[in-house]
């Protein structure tokens, strides 16, 4: 007879197997957390530099000879900046040295001075101390990205340039500040001027189009298939196809967008409209599958009770079943949209991998998207774009977190418990 009171060796094995399994599970969680921390940590470490900038103060001559008070916009602002730099460091007399000297400030300096003069006409007529954005080489030297102890031939900045920078630092003519322009500028070929705004707006517009198309279509398809469609061979084929569609590589949707939306319908190339439609083809299957699953999870008693009270099937679905399934549908939609947010491959085919400075004002204007911006900056030769790349990834992650938070908030508001 088996003894049920004293623990057998079998029971011991079973218990230790259970313990082991729990430790495997904890190990898996720890491993994924470590990866996450390493990834986010290295991105934050590399990208943090992009949120500060360096500015240099230079005394410029805005006398009547340099800037005509009647027509300030006609002045040669670039020359004024260059003259001011020459006056600051008169020892640079050779052409090559002067070129290096002019390279201390961003090559946007002339335009910066123009904006300053047009905004402050009262400052005209004498010498004025104006802050200019420092060049990217100057900036990353101060951030310590460049090792100034290595041999002169091996770095971008010569001893002479570093000497000038040190003089400026000693005289208090250098200030570091938060890089607001990173959030207010569009893309630029100068790392010190490059900003994320055009890509951010492009991504937002693209996702808006994607949402407006895929959400209603996805929900209607899911509700029909789940609640109304007869179960036969034909609806089986549709179901299999939707599941297959979810696994199609995204570049295929890009090619479809190129041949159908651009070439057949003649929609504008590089526009968020086309981008959003292409991405919504990609997110549709995800939304449909998630929506069907959450509709199926609504207890049949709800449906039957509504029908029993005399509601028509449409009323039962829209008044009772769909609202209960909505939180699940939302989650599916957000997952799909998050996928769409990170997608570059289909955008390549429809011309959204592009250099765009102007912030798009509508869904018909050329735009780019956040992941594309990351891709373009990662490919740029300038060293200072490295930190911009990581900073753009941070912005993308924040965008994603905001989207997920929105989903959680919406879910909390609509969630009903039985």
């Amino acid at each position, binding site marked *: 007879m088996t003894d049920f009171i004293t623990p057998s060796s079998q029971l011991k094995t079973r218990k230790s197997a259970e313990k082991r399994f729990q430790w495997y599970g904890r190990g898996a969680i720890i491993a994924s957390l470590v990866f996450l921390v390493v990834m986010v940590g290295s991105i934050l470490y590399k990208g943090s530099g992009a949120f500060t900038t360096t500015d240099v103060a230079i005394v410029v001559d805005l006398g009547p000879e340099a800037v005509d008070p009647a027509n300030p916009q006609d002045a040669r602002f670039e020359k004024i900046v260059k003259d001011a730099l020459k006056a600051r460091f008169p020892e640079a007399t050779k*052409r090559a040295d002067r*070129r290096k000297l002019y*390279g201390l400030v961003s*090559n*946007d300096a002339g*335009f910066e001075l123009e904006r300053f003069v047009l905004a402050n006409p009262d400052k005209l007529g004498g010498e004025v101390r104006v802050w200019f954005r420092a060049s990217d080489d100057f900036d990353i030297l101060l951030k310590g990205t*460049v*090792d100034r102890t*290595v041999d002169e*031939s*091996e*770095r*971008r900045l010569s001893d002479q340039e570093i000497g000038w920078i040190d003089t400026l630092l000693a005289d208090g003519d250098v200030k570091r500040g938060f890089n607001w322009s990173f959030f207010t500028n569009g893309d*630029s*070929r*100068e790392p010190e001027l490059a900003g994320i705004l055009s890509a951010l707006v492009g991504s937002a*517009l693209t996702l*808006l*189009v994607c*949402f*407006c198309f895929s*959400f*209603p279509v996805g929900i209607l398809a899911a509700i029909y298939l789940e609640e109304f469609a007869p179960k036969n061979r034909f609806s089986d084929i549709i179901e299999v196809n939707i599941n297959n569609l979810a696994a199609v590589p995204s570049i295929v949707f890009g090619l479809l967008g190129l041949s159908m939306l*651009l070439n057949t319908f*003649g929609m*504008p*190339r*590089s526009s968020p*409209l086309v981008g959003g439609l292409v991405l919504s083809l990609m997110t549709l299957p995800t939304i449909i599958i998630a929506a069907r699953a959450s509709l199926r999870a609504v207890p049949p008693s709800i449906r039957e009770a509504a029908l029993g009270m005399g509601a028509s099937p449409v009323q039962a679905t829209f008044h009772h079943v769909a609202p209960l399934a909505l939180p699940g549908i939302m989650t599916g939609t957000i997952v799909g949209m998050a996928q769409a947010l990170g997608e570059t491959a289909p955008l390549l085919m429809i*011309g959204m*991998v*592009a*250099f*765009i*400075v*102007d912030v798009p*004002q*509508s*869904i*018909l*204007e*050329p735009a780019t998207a956040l992941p594309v911006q990351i891709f*373009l900056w*990662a*490919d*740029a*030769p*300038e*060293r200072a774009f*490295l930190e911009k790349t990581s900073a753009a990834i941070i912005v993308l992650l924040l965008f994603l977190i905001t989207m997920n938070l929105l989903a959680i908030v*919406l879910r909390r508001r609509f969630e009903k418990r039985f």
Partner: protein
Amino acid sequence: MFTKTLCVSAIALATAAAAPAFARDQIKIVGSSTVFPFSTTVAERFGKSTEFKTPVVESTGSGGGLKLFCAGVGEDTPDITNASRRIKESEVKTCAENGVTDIVEAKIGYDGIVLANSKESDQLSISLGDLFMALAKDVPGEAGETTPNPYTMWNEINPELPAVKIEVLGPPPTSGTRDAFVELAMEGGCKTVDWVKDLKKTDSDAYKTLCHTIREDGAYVEAGENDNLIVQKLQANPDAFGIFGYSFLEQNSDAVQGAMINGVAPEFELIAEGDYPVSRSLYFYVKKAHVGEVPGIEQFLAEFTSEDAWGEEGYLADKGLIPMTDAEREEGAKAINGLMNLSM
């Protein structure tokens, strides 16, 4: 409710801008990823200094750009395409078939392709012939036969080369840099064998296969289109060499060094004077039918061909473009601004 407001506002946004959308008022540029940094720099300057909108520049690759460019005349097609090689006879024909008959060619400068390694190792000095022997799939023998590449170490080819494993990281076949490298470096080295040179006349297909095929046994590693990645891999592995554009060497001069090829180092002046053997010309092509239709094209050309831009001390030189000689620039500017037709 939320959805409804969102979508209504999206439609409002779309219709608000729909009115002026027909006549495009923004220049569209496509093409080579090598010319992309230069084209975008000019585009940005142009947008800032004139009342025109900043042109949209897409990076599609030289071949992809020319395909779009030659698709026809009209609002949906690009106005300008960049190329890191000259337009081909066949592409001119496709263009003409689609109604793109008048094309303006603009050569903008040179780009050097460098073979570089980490500064931790010694600088390499290699001839084109030896470089070909190291990277070719089949190597030509003395008597007109070919054998699969037997070399695994650099010093097996030439005792003067270092005794390290051959490992070269380079661009994949889709890249324009790879095309140029194969044409200039590989073919240049291949031709140094006498019987191969004669082969070109007798059997040009066999010649091309021999000279243009890079080995696939792992000594040449396709490292993707991203040159920054190659630079990082070189820093991690001092024995490896990488192939990329001159501007990346210039920006990373503290970490990597360029190999001397045929005794010439990849330096700015030496590439500009044509002494460095692996350098290519960069171009862009303008659709003449769009000049006057899309505002600003003529002014954009003027900006590109100004001394401030493509001159010896222009801002494009700062970005790594190697300028043409004074005479070439003067002649080029005249032809481009005068909208002279392409002649092959």
